[in-house]
């Protein structure tokens, strides 16, 4: 069988509501398929690595199914990968949720919010502004007041500022988008973030996998 069109592959590892990512892709006319198959992920043209739920159990599933290894291989091949929420968190070395070792694709740790102001709630749930800290093709056109939908209790803490692409504020600045080379990942949910989120998915479908 010859693939005539490049499709986007959504890594399916029972991590919450993956169908919403697929529906959002459908809405912007991006062909997307789910797969639980490690080989399909390893050889995919373009990957969305979503995730909702518990980091430790997600990571255990990824390892058991061979999907963790497949993601490492795809990344090494230069495949564009978009991580979302727990998918983003698992790109780092380690998560405090468990704790558990992540994929180690980007240096850093996923930490639990420790907020001194009792008026600030955890999980950080709702709409918040996302400020681009440096240009990236996936953040193109992002306005200063554009908001995205978040729902998480842990945040991304990359070791190196070069991997930080955007920040948001919840009792202080926190990193909400990371990247390097062909990897990009958001703590927020583009699939639940109205037209700005859909636009990000659309840009990812066209992205050549270079950071600038």
């Amino acid at each position, binding site marked *: 069988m010859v693939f005539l069109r490049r499709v986007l592959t959504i890594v399916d590892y029972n991590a*919450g*509501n993956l*169908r*919403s990512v697929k*529906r*959002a892709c*459908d*809405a912007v006319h991006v062909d997307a398929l789910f797969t639980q198959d490690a080989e399909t992920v390893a050889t995919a043209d373009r990957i969305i690595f979503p995730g*909702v*739920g518990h980091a430790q159990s997600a990571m255990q599933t990824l390892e058991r199914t061979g999907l963790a290894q497949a993601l490492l291989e795809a990344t090494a091949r230069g495949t564009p990968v978009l991580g979302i929420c727990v998918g983003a968190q698992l790109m780092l070395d380690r998560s405090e949720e468990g704790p558990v070792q992540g994929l180690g694709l980007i240096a850093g740790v996923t930490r639990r919010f420790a907020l001194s102001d*009792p*008026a*600030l*709630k*955890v*999980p*950080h*749930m*709702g*709409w*918040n*502004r996302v400020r681009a800290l440096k240009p990236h093709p996936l953040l193109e056109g992002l*306005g200063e*007041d*554009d*908001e995205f*939908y978040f*729902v*998480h*209790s842990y945040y991304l803490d990359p070791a190196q500022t070069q991997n930080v692409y955007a920040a948001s*504020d*919840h009792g202080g600045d926190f990193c909400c988008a990371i990247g390097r080379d062909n990897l990009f990942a958001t703590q927020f949910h583009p*699939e*639940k*973030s*109205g*037209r*700005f*989120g*859909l636009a990000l998915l659309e840009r990812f479908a066209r992205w050549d996998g270079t950071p600038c």
Partner: protein
Amino acid sequence: MLSKRVIACLDVRNGQLAKSVKFVDTQDIGDPVAKAAQYYADGLDELVFYDITASSEGRNIMIDVVEDVASKIFIPFSVGGGIRSVEDATRLRLAGAEKINVNSAAVQDPELITRCAQAIGAQSTVLSMDVLRVDKSAATPSGYEIVIHGGRKRMGLDALEWARRGEALGAGELVVNSIDADGTRDGYEITLTRMIAGAVGIPVIASGGAGKPEHLYDVLTEGQADAALVASMVHYGDYRVSELKQYLHGRGLPIRTRY
């Protein structure tokens, strides 16, 4: 800073908007999906569908409605009404609902909250509580009592105690609906909302009594709510969602104004 949310609630019966709600745009009468799409385009932050269907056949229609909505609107939405089991919750979640709301069934079976939180995550498990103002007593020291079945049955359960317990059982968010304020359009029950918001560490959605934009402002500031639920004031066409948000933004609240 997290924006304060404006949430609209739509009552659905047998897959259609409940007749008790009058709509201005005649072409939209009866179709919850069209109404949801309209509010989405107008900047709504979140939606709640409350299924008031009595029959189980009607409940299957709700699944279709949820799937349809999920393919057309890309903001979070929750579904409540008649959720009695983890299976109910999981089905709605898979159909595309971001969150599910449990109410009466959780009062009768509190562990339902924990089971739902374990199955679909605390962030997707919302405890919705109907609250009646009562005389303070040994059973209701806060002066507020939980009622179920749309306010028809008093449970002798203190509202503040139930809110705290709901959080401990795993709810990720609370909807506090004042039976006294509901339908009055005279404003939210500020005292109740503030009391509960101050007692829990999870977000609180105020519900019942919204009639004017000031009411939203009051409950989001003085009432310490994270979100304000509106129904008739937008359904009847008195206010547009975008108008409410502009008003709140103009008064200095963090509000999502670009959409």
